[in-house]
């Protein structure tokens, strides 16, 4: 499609990175933002996007979205998930390395990037495997993988095993400044567990994962980060104790960041009800006190960002007894409305909330995105914060229709998504 001169007018431009929150027009040409406010000299408008009643913000950035390629195409494909991404206003996303085969070879990473690029939708930033095959034994060629496009290295959801391997992997990564994103989870304490170790798991007779499985690992990883100097990001916190530890670590000067999944911001273990496998998630939904601490941490910046932890699961894998069902939920299209829901409920200012899904993830990923600036690529999201829509199988574009929010009405509908100045989604 040839580039058109676009004017987005009448919208409330909210750009947390540049502390902008004002009614303004945006002028886009040749894939970039060329002016904010007044048209540049010699401007001819190709198309007007009327953003009346809408918020105009940087395209959203999701640090954890499983696209299920390569290897799990029966669960989802790039086509369906990229369509879901832009329908959710997400213009950049990072995908974890737990594909099949895992992303531990440059060739696989290149193929994935190439596939994504050919779709001309959101930007895909692969996260490379920290160890070969994600087995936790030998470290990967992080240099090669970074060159192929990996922005960080992780073990996906595999619980950390050998701390000596971790130490070496983090030392190696630190040598070259690579980012290490790790799920804090002690393999032994989490063994066989499927739900938070609390009243609900006791009533339902479900094998439990105590909070200390996470907090012990937070302590270990922070200690290793101190010793190695690695740039550590803790992925998917779930327990209130973890939030407190990160707060103290940051206060003590450790350069550590962390995130939370939108599911844990809104739900807790009582929502499992009578064994509803839609609520079987990893990390598990914990108690009310944990949820409150995660929300407070997200508001005060202890938790740097919120992600969808998008994990499309096929129906068959959910129609099983709880512990046998596959954990995970679809979430790319829900990241925005769920973030807005949290902001509304906890009286968090819109720019702060949007920062958690734009400027902050961009900073942690180290990419030039998540902001609106003259000369920057025009990755833009235009959404109506007052438009309510129902989450159901028809409205979701992802191939994964399993989310705990099925049937709920959420506010926040994306009207336009632009990537590199092209309208890639319109509703």
């Amino acid at each position, binding site marked *: 499609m040839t580039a058109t001169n676009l004017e987005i007018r009448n919208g409330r431009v909210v750009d947390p990175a540049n502390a902008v929150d004002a009614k303004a027009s945006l002028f886009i040409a040749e894939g970039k933002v060329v002016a904010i406010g007044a048209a540049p000299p010699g401007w001819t408008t190709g198309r007007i996007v009327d953003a009346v009643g809408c918020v105009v913000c940087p395209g959203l950035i999701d640090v954890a979205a499983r696209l299920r390629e390569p290897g799990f195409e029966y669960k989802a494909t790039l086509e369906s998930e990229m369509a879901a991404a832009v329908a959710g206003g997400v213009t950049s996303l990072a995908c974890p390395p737990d594909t099949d085969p895992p992303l531990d070879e440059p060739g696989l990473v290149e193929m994935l990037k190439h596939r994504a690029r050919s779709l001309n939708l959101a930007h895909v930033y692969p996260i490379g495997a920290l160890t070969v095959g994600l087995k936790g034994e030998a470290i990967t060629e992080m240099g090669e993988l970074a060159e192929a496009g990996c922005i960080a290295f992780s073990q996906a959801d595999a619980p950390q095993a050998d701390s000596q391997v971790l130490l070496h992997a983090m030392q190696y990564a630190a040598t070259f400044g690579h980012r290490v994103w790790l799920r804090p989870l002690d393999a032994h304490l989490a063994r066989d567990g499927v739900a938070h170790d609390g*009243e609900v798991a*006791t*009533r339902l*007779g479900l094998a*439990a994962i105590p909070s200390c499985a996470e907090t012990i690992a937070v302590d270990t990883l922070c200690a290793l980060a101190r010793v190695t100097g690695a740039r550590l990001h803790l992925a998917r916190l779930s327990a209130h104790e973890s939030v407190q530890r990160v707060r103290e670590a940051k206060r003590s000067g450790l350069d550590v960041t962390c995130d939370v999944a939108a599911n844990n911001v809104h739900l807790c273990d009582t929502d499992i009800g*009578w*064994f509803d496998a839609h609520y079987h998630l990893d990390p598990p939904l914990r108690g009310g006190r944990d949820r409150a601490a995660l929300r407070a941490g997200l508001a005060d910046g202890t938790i740097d960002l919120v992600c969808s932890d998008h994990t499309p699961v096929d129906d068959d894998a959910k129609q099983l*007894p*709880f*512990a046998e069902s596959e954990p995970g939920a679809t979430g790319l299209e829900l990241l925005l409305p769920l973030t807005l829901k949290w902001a509304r409920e906890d009286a968090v200012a819109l720019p702060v909330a949007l920062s958690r899904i734009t400027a902050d993830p961009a900073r942690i990923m180290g990419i030039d995105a998540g902001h609106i600036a003259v000369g920057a690529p025009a990755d833009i999201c235009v959404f109506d914060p007052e438009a309510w829509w129902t989450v159901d199988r028809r409205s979701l574009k992802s191939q994964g229709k399993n989310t705990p929010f099925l049937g709920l009405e959420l506010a926040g509908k994306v009207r336009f998504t632009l990537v590199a100045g092209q309208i890639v989604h319109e509703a």
Partner: protein
Amino acid sequence: MHNPQLNARGELTHLLTLEGLPVEVIVRILDTAVPFVSIAERDVKKVPLLRGKAVFNLFFESSTRTRTTFEIAAKRLSADVINLNIGVSSTSKGETLLDTIDNLVAMNADMFVVRHAQSGAPHLIAQHLLATRRPHIHVINAGDGRHSHPTQGLLDLFTIRHYKQDFRGLTVAIVGDILHSRVARSLIHGLTTLGTPEVRVIGPRTLLPAAVESLGVRVFHDMGEGLRGADVVVMLRLQSERMKGSLLPSAGEFFKHYGLTADKLALAKPDAIVMHPGPMNRGVEIESAVADGAHSVILPQVTFGIAVRMAVMSMLGTSQ
């Protein structure tokens, strides 16, 4: 939250767990079981209540005892009984749990008695039947993982009521591996619903689940303290795989601290009754002198178990 066990008229349509069942429903089941006890003493032990109905015993976790009592109960109601011992989880054989159910429904099943290693499996089946609009097919949970064993809970309640009449003045002590016990969970729900003022759980910390007090029980680690003044002592079975490893060092040490001996029983009330869901591990949970002694009502539990299961099946099988 909608209680999946009750239909729109508030009648019992499945028996999945005692948790959340109204008092009236539990009492009605116990009352209905009373005449079924005497039927066992007749020559002709059958009544025609479920004639023409097909009851499928679906045991994914094998158990000859429980399956046999359900089979006897169904046959005494004149139902046709088909036993399916699937043994291991059906998923490992390629057919999903729900596919198995759909196939059996196509064979005109009226009632499923389900035992499964996973907590929540009977709930999944009940929800599937609701979603596929088959309100006339009923599910009885014969034990799911560590979650619930409602007919065992009911027969335990029946037994206690038989010997002690009123729950409202009782102290009931449940001893052993509460963490892994669906029997304990069911009995606790039943006792608290019927107004038992003091329900105690006794065991080492490793065998007590998180936040167990939230079920409405008092926790004791010292068995002597826990048995003091008890009217009812329920001993739970200790699975052999728990007897060594990181939860318990040995069966011997377990017996020393938590086994029921005559000495320890003497701390309970003089007319206390001793119960056990069976099968017993003599010398681990309970010494033979007590198991076979005057306080033991373990064999009557079995008899009452058939009557209670007949009551449940007849109530479900004759509901609209």
